[in-house]
């Protein structure tokens, strides 16, 4: 497959850019933060996204979607990374849709995919239990109880947790705390008895929550994928999210690079435009090269998720490891080259730095990905 966007994806990119820069720019996130918005995202913007078909980009046509695939989903995420638009797009349109369309039963698909496509339901993935991402480290338990299960445990760093209708929760049905086998995924309504969700105040002003499960009863129908074999399903869902985050970070990195290059062409010091200084030219040119490499591996990962999802894992790993580091370099370089003004809250650079830090950590930072990459390469 040629590593260029086809016409359809190119048009989607232009449309997404137009909508987001016009209706949901960085100033929207700033406003949500400043007015301590309870939802943490703008519901009108979210409805508009659903109307444009963004929430159905990974939903099959049989369930009311447009199923354009991961490259298209990544194109939207990338543009959102340029404007830092806050929304449940990643947790729902990418991860929720992937969870149900790839791993759901017919009944689960029929119930959830049309609602996701319509923008009527929000899903959240509850996986981590401590500060560092570790999907196989699961202390949350699911004991058999009657025809179903009873869940107990605590989850953290649950993106969109407090606004979700449905939580997808990993819990242990067998094995010891760090074993890969014995994990099962459950669909747990946020308003189920025994579920308490506490929103976390995050550095990027985006949604994250702690979830406590206290004797939460679910039926056997609530199992997503196989009992005890949930890690494979979870990894499939997480990989979609990781690829989406990589695309988002790609957008943020490109935006930081472009904003910085513009600033270098305007700002004067020592009687000269600072962009004439070779020290700064080389920093910017090095960053450009890194961003180009990051873009390539992200596109390859997204294309592989579309063409051969079973072979995408190592590429997603490489994409998130690379783009995570590149995007952090981009925000750091952007701040340094902006000088003092970059340190001010009034300027947007800080928003990018904060969001990229969170996106980089979510579902495994660069170190996590590099370690996993090495294990997949047998060393």
């Amino acid at each position, binding site marked *: 497959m*040629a590593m*260029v966007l086809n016409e359809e994806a190119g048009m989607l990119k232009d449309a997404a850019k137009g909508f987001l820069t016009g209706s949901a720019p960085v100033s929207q996130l700033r406003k949500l933060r400043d007015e301590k918005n309870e939802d943490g995202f703008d519901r009108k913007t979210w409805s508009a996204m659903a109307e444009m078909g963004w929430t159905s980009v990974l939903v099959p046509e049989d369930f009311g979607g447009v199923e354009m695939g991961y490259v298209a989903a990544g194109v939207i995420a990338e543009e959102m990374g340029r404007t830092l638009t806050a929304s449940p797009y990643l947790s729902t349109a990418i991860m929720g849709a992937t969870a149900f369309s790839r791993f759901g039963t017919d009944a689960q698909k029929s119930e959830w995919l049309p609602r996701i496509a319509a923008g009527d339901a929000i899903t959240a993935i509850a996986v981590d239990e401590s500060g560092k991402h570790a999907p196989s480290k699961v202390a949350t338990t699911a004991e058999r109880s009657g025809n179903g299960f009873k869940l107990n445990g605590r989850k953290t760093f649950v993106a969109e947790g407090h606004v979700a209708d449905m939580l997808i929760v990993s819990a242990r049905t067998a094995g010891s705390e760090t074993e890969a086998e014995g994990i099962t995924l459950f669909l747990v309504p946020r308003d189920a008895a025994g579920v308490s969700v506490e929103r976390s105040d995050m550095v990027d002003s985006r949604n994250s929550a702690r979830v406590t499960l206290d004797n939460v009863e679910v039926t056997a129908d609530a199992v997503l994928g196989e009992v005890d074999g949930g890690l494979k399903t979870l990894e499939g869902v997480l990989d979609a999210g990781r690829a989406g985050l990589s695309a988002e970070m790609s957008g943020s990195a490109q935006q930081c690079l472009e904003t910085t290059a513009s600033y270098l*062409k305007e700002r004067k010091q020592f009687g000269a435009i600072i962009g*004439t200084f*070779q020290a700064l*030219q080389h920093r910017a040119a090095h960053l450009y090269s890194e961003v180009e490499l990051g*873009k390539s*591996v992200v596109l390859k990962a997204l294309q592989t998720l579309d063409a051969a999802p079973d072979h995408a894992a190592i590429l997603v790993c490489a994409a998130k490891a690379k783009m995570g580091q590149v995007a952090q370099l981009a925000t750091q370089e952007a701040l340094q080259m902006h000088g003092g003004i970059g340190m001010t809250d009034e300027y947007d650079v800080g928003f990018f730095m904060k969001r990229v830090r969170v996106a980089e950590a979510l579902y495994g930072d660069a170190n996590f990905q590099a370690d996993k990459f*090495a*294990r997949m390469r047998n060393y």
Partner: protein
Amino acid sequence: MADLEAFRQETREWLEANCPEEMRKPMQSEADAVWGGKKFKFSEPQKLWLDRMAEKGWTVPEWPTEYGGGGLSKAEAKILREEMQRIKARVPLQSFGIWMLGPALLKYGTHEQKLEHLPPIARGEIRWAQGYSEPNAGSDLAALMTKCEDKGDHYIVNGQKIWTSYADKADWIFVLVRTDFQASKHNGISFILVDMDQPGVTTKPIKLISGASPFCETFFDDARAEKHNLVGELNRGWDVAKYLLTHEREMIGGMGSGGMRPMGDIAVQQVGLNETGQLADPFLRADVARAEIDGMAFMFTMERVADEAKAGQGTGANSSVLKYYGTEFNKRRLELLMDSSGSDGLEWGGEDDVARGWLRSKGNSIEGGTSEVQLNIIAKRILQLPSA
């Protein structure tokens, strides 16, 4: 598409029938590469393979057939490459003529120049050297001073070139010369082809820290060049030089990516795994993993840049990104191989030593325009940052 499938089938059958067994074995070292030229010592299978491929025009598959090429479309050439890889066929011929002079002549040469020079390149009969850098014109290439005087029916060239790759093994040389000393430095340069088989041209190999001598000094003392061998317009040689440099950069940047044994595999062989199945040196493991990820990202970038160029979306300056990143990456790769190899890598043995490759790689970010020059180009041509 049906045509392409038919082409694939024919190509597959032809390669099966015509590629000698010896030419399907991996090259043991750089010494197995076929460069061609009058001085080259071919093995019998090498010569047979080259002649058969040249007969089809497949040493330069995309060049026009009238100039010794195969006249293949990009899609057909891709199929040929894939089918060659399928049977692990070696490249029949590699040369600066194919990589550098050929593309420049196809763009800037006259029909007569193409007819005279391209077919011997395609057949591996003439080996070309590149006469660009001078002792006082390295990164600042346009400061070159090799003098070329008009003597009526011919030119006379005087001066010295340096870092001329394999000049001692070459038959002809393409040279950047100064034809106007009054004009501004970029506007007095011409691009000329010189036969090295004359007393006025001498070469002297330069021994490098790696112990090898891939580069020479080349001296021109009243060397003669024919009028019809001036490529492009008089005093407009810089245009040709720049065009050709983009090809050189892509070539150097691409080194160290394709067909190499993965770093992780070498590290495992040298260092071993611990009881949990991880590379026994945890810091090396982290470095190797990051480098392999960057290597993948670089490989995909080469692929993307090529696909964008095909789709008419690329920017020519991206060759500077490939050159910059590819050469810096190759240095990093060789450092990690040295880290993996320990004292084994420090032995001064045969030509395939890790140590020799490691030392040789240090030149990658200098030759063909230093990393710093590439960063200047990216800053100016892509980011459009202003000049001082």
